[in-house]
């Protein structure tokens, strides 16, 4: 007869069965803990990288952990139909797609000065038909300082300012650079290469390679570049520190007050042997390019009054016809951005550096959302 009483369950006859059940339950729990990374100290987790970013630039509640200072933009993209040969993405049709985006500078300090030798970046969100989206996070430099998530973490840790001096420990930086010639090459390139004088006259690069698939099912690995119509001009690096704190963002606002800004999007096709899984390696300039459309930025809006602040510009949010390459940075960008997004959206909103900037008059309406849709 079955015994439901506690003394039946805990009797000697039940011992083997109880052990078997405990083994199953305990084993499943251990497997779950392993899958969640709680048992393996060796796994690189997105939280570790976000913690390193917060350690590097300080924790600024409510702001992005990277590219903390930014400005929303609104515009549209006109495809010319040529891109459909490479990818069936609806963005490439001969049609107009609404875009929102964000100019930003690299770094995790939301009110940092603009006079720094760093990335000028543009993030974009294309709203395609039927709820599809394509999100991009682009940099003015075509390559990235590190090739892997582990190198990114090590680079952050090595260059974290020492609290005693306020500067990174040169010995740590040197030890890191010795291990990472690709980062050293990047730093040398940044020191030497001209820095665009404006957000408006910079190229914006996909940085990573992506996989395009067309209607015939043919796939190709590609990178892409937005090239500006505004003529290039460079910043004087010697006087960067003397420039007003928000001079680049103010300059972008004044240009947009005079008219839209236009970039041409070209897809870059690699030659055999060009690296598609290593964002530190540039593709030579002579690679075949196919122009697929134009991006028009019509206006700039502060994060307070614009549509970009609460958007996670995860570059793996892609439409049909585009998918990630085997570049290991892409999955890491997605999972690290997701952790940062959850942290900052759970924190109170703080005023952006440009909120009180005279170049961006506060909207007349007290309801930013109403103002947005009215324009």
């Amino acid at each position: 007869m079955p015994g439901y009483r506690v003394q039946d369950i805990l009797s000697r006859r039940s011992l083997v069965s109880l052990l078997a059940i405990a083994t199953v339950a305990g084993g499943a729990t251990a497997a779950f803990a392993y899958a969640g990374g709680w048992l393996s100290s060796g796994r690189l987790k997105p939280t570790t990288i976000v913690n390193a970013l917060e350690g590097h630039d300080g924790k600024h509640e409510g702001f992005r952990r990277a590219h903390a200072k930014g400005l929303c933009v609104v515009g549209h993209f006109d495809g010319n139909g040529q891109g459909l040969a490479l990818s069936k993405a609806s963005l490439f049709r001969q049609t107009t797609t609404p875009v929102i985006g964000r100019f930003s500078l690299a770094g995790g300090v939301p009110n940092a000065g603009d006079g720094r030798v760093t990335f000028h970046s543009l993030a974009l969100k294309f709203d395609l038909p039927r709820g599809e989206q394509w999100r991009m996070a682009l940099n003015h430099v075509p390559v990235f300082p590190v090739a892997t998530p582990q190198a990114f973490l090590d680079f952050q840790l090595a260059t974290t300012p020492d609290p005693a001096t306020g500067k990174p420990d040169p010995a740590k930086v040197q030890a890191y650079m010795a291990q990472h010639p690709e980062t050293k090459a990047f730093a040398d390139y940044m020191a030497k290469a001209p820095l665009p004088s404006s957000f408006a006259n910079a190229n914006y690069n996909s940085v990573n390679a992506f996989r395009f698939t067309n209607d015939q099912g043919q796939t190709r690995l590609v990178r892409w570049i937005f090239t500006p119509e505004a003529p290039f001009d460079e910043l004087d690096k010697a006087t960067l520190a003397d420039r007003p704190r928000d001079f680049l963002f103010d300059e972008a606002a004044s240009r947009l007050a005079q008219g839209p800004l236009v970039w041409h999007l070209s897809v870059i096709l690699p030659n055999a042997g060009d690296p598609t899984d290593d964002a530190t390696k540039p593709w030579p300039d002579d690679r075949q390019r196919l122009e697929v459309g134009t991006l028009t930025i019509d206006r700039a809006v502060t994060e307070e009054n614009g549509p970009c602040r609460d958007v996670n510009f995860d570059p793996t949010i892609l439409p049909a016809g585009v998918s990630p390459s085997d570049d290991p940075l892409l999955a890491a960008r997605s999972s690290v951005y997701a952790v940062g997004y959850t942290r900052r959206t759970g924190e109170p909103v703080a005023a952006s550096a440009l909120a009180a900037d005279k170049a961006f008059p506060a909207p007349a309406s007290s309801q930013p959302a109403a103002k947005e849709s009215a324009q």
Partner: protein
Amino acid sequence: MKSTTFSGAARLLHWLMAVLIIAMLFIGVGMVSTVGASHNWLVPLHKSVGVTLLLLALIRLAVRATKGTPPLPADMPAPQKAVAHLSHLVLYALMIALPLVGWSMLSAGGYPITVWGAVHLPPLLSPDRGLYASLRHLHTYLAYALFLTVIAHLSAALMHGLLFKDGVFQSMAAWRTRR
């Protein structure tokens, strides 16, 4: 005469969902804790299996409502029966709440909600920063609660099968429907 096993449809749904739910819990904790390449395919898989489970859970409720359930043994003590009923209520609540919270969370974050490769689900909510963060955390807590409930359910099922031998385990594990 009332059957001593669950209906064939209920047993099929139970075991199919058992596999998918356990896979889903492992995919979920795995994908949020890695920066590795698997993140690229685990996240879309998680969304697709999630919406599949929501549909299966609704079908299962309909099957349960029409086909009924076999009674628990008459001599099972009332407190244990109450715990059994409550645990099943919790299981059903979590099976339905988790995909809905996931869907709502993506809506509040303004994300596209893409499942099965090319189907775009409509948002359940308007984008809302604070709500996104709350739902994202809720999704995790509910998932842990579901994992613990599944472990308790599995342990209780094995106790019925190995210790009590009262037919409760067989009512779901039987190959054929029995009268």
